């Protein structure tokens, strides 16, 4: 599954050409992203931090607001609804995170809550599709997203289960967390970096959020012909599953580039894996094929 990096990267360019005309489902599916489309590195005006407890319903107005968010939340979390492909992919990427973090922090992978005692930040948490499983696995999770609506949806949904109501959701950015001098055992940013104007700066912020020796996990889309064909042409222009312009191919990073910018941010990539979608079974699985979707695990220098 996870592969040793250098040799794989050398073969990367060869792989790209072979897959140009592949099934469009591949990337189109993953593009139902739980990440905000907005640019994370732009200075966001609002710095709204919603703390743990939900507002109790005192006025009719709030009642109405809550009902509205409940409706959105239901769509976001409906595993048979429009976000179904994302839900299907989610367990695959969590399986990678679980195994990488268990090994790194010497946790027992056979227990129900292996992340007990770990502080994890989910940067670009969206509706909380990753934050909640991490919390169920025992982690003390902080979910941040620049879009306030996402945070409200995530908060409302997480509060319904005692296991996930401990998640701290904040409408903020990685940069602002750095300013607040927050530190975490693991920093996770899935499907975010392709929406960021300055990936190198973003990676530096992620690195600054991790304790020395801490872990970082990123996933994104490769800048390959195959990714262009599936993620942009198919998903945006042919199938209209995403608004045109959701993704800029030129802003995608190749695995080599990601490794380099992480290295400059003093994060050493230890493992990398690709996700492949099988249209037959409708399932995603981890693979050595990093030509479209890939996930990387690295550790921060120090100790």
């Amino acid at each position, binding site marked *: 599954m996870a592969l040793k990096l250098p040799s794989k990267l050398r073969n990367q360019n060869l792989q790209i050409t072979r897959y140009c005309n592949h099934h469009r489902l591949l990337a189109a599916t993953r593009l139902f992203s739980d990440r905000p489309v907005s640019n994370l590195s732009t200075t966001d005006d609002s710095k709204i931090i919603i703390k743990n407890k939900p507002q109790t319903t005192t006025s009719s107005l709030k009642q109405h607001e809550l009902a509205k968010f*409940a409706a959105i939340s239901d769509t976001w979390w409906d595993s048979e609804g429009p976000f179904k492909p994302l839900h299907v992919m989610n*367990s695959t990427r969590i399986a990678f995170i*679980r195994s990488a973090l268990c090994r790194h922090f010497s946790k027992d992978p056979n227990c129900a809550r292996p992340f007990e005692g770990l502080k994890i930040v989910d940067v670009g948490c969206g509706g909380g599709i990753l934050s909640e499983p991490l919390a*169920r696995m025992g982690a003390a999770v902080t979910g941040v997203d620049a879009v306030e609506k996402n945070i409200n949806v995530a908060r409302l949904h997480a509060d*319904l*289960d005692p296991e996930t109501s401990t998640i701290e959701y904040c409408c903020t950015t990685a940069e602002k967390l750095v300013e607040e001098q927050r530190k975490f055992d693991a920093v996770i940013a899935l499907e975010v970096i392709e929406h960021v104007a300055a990936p190198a700066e973003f990676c530096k912020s992620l690195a600054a959020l991790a304790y020395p020796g801490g872990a970082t996990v990123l996933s994104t889309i490769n800048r390959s012909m195959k990714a262009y064909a599936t993620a942009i042409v198919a998903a945006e222009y042919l199938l209209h599953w995403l608004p045109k312009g959701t993704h800029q191919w030129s802003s995608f990073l190749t695995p080599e580039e990601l490794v380099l910018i992480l290295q400059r941010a003093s994060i050493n990539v230890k493992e990398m894996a690709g996700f492949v979608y099988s249209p037959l079974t409708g399932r995603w699985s981890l693979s050595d094929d990093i030509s479209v979707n890939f996930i990387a695990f690295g550790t921060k220098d120090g100790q």
Partner: protein
Amino acid sequence: MNRVIARKVVPTYHQIFKLSRKQFCSDGAAKSSAAAASSQFNQESDANPSLTDNVQPYDIAIVGGGMVGMALACSLATTPLTKHLRVAIIDSSPALANKPCIKREDPPDPRVSTVTPATISFFKDTGAWQYVQQHRHAYFDKMQVWDYTSLGYTKYDARDVDKEVLGCVVENKVLHSSLLSRIEDTDFQKTIYHSRLTSMSLHPSSSSIVVDSTAPTEASYARGRLAKLELSDGNSLYAKLVVGSDGGKSQVRELAGFKTTGWKYSQNAVICTVEHSVENYCAWQRFLPAGPIALLPIGDKFSNIVWTMNPEESSDFKSVKEDDFVKAVNHALDYGYGPHPKSSLQGSAGMFSWLRGNVAILANESFEIPPKVVKLASERMAFPLSLMHANEYASKRVVLIGDAAHTVHPLAGQGVNLGFGDAFALSRIIAEGIAVGMDIGEVSLLKKYEAERKLANMTMMAILDGFQKAYSIDFGPLNILRAAAFHGAHFISPLKRSIISYASGEQRLPLFY
């Protein structure tokens, strides 16, 4: 064959059926018959679920604590990823209240199951098999199947598939109490409600959504994050996942609105325990004009009889004098309805000789007569046979296992093995979900279970239903074809091997050897 697509019928079955149906077929103690007795056990429940603690939601509510329901609980209790789950078991059967004392010297109960090697290994994995071994159980490594037309017979031997045994016959109460004993070894947090399910709500009506921060459980329920169950004793409880293991007349299936497809066979099965003068080590099955009769070893010179016949015949056989019944059984297993198949392998065997290659004819492959029955050793029970399959096994927060999802013809004793297969598959898939931090009531997780088990169950159902149909017609040319099929199955080793493999619970289609 009156084919019906039924949304479950109100139980109208008569007393005998009440007593016998589930215990034999598979899915645990008869809830309906025990309903009357349930009230006295309410006070004695081991965890004493009171009205005050019911706001704390459970992870899983297992409705129906029969063999299959307890197999699920046992598997959850012994799997590292699931042993922490809070589980409620809802069953009004007295078997869960006071564990029945099983005495070795008592004659075996007629309600037995033929467990396959796959089921045995599941039991071994959970550690429950050691308890089965402390009680009466009978392994068998040979099986002879023949029919009344005397044209064909086939013998299966465990060695054909490189196995020690073909199966093991165990009383249902032994399987049930072994699972219970194993659960009691662990510190699994289970609460037993000695009651019946009266209502289940998964999706509250939208008008009732009230966000009240003082009752988080209510709020979770209002948002569809929990199922709410109400019981006949007035208790109510919440759970993330409701498992229906409540048998062929499943209340959970009805309340969840799952439709079923199925038909009745115009056949009843008569079951009882009989005694021989010698020990029986082989499983015997003979196809008679009205249906098959099976003689299964249960140990200590006892055997179990499962005799399928017309409903009219079954009421006769249930009421005739014991001596006459024993005579009829011996007749049916020997010369009755037609002579023995030729014990020499001449004649039609020749036309298959080219298929046999150089496989030697072993001495033990010749036709044998089953041991004589000398005595009836239990009451006789009769119950109607039917085939039923739920069109869905899973929806959000609800899942069906065992007879609640499918009842099959008891031809090869496969019903309970399919149920155990369901229970262990569901347990494994719940563990997989927990490993990736999923809400265990999520429909996407439960659909994985459905996809996996539907294929296994429907394949077996089709095979058994096909067998039943092939034998329900007594028509000359068809008899010969059937006999040829028998010979084929007997002599074409790979085919025979794969049939045994399939019957012993391996997940492989019989023809894709």
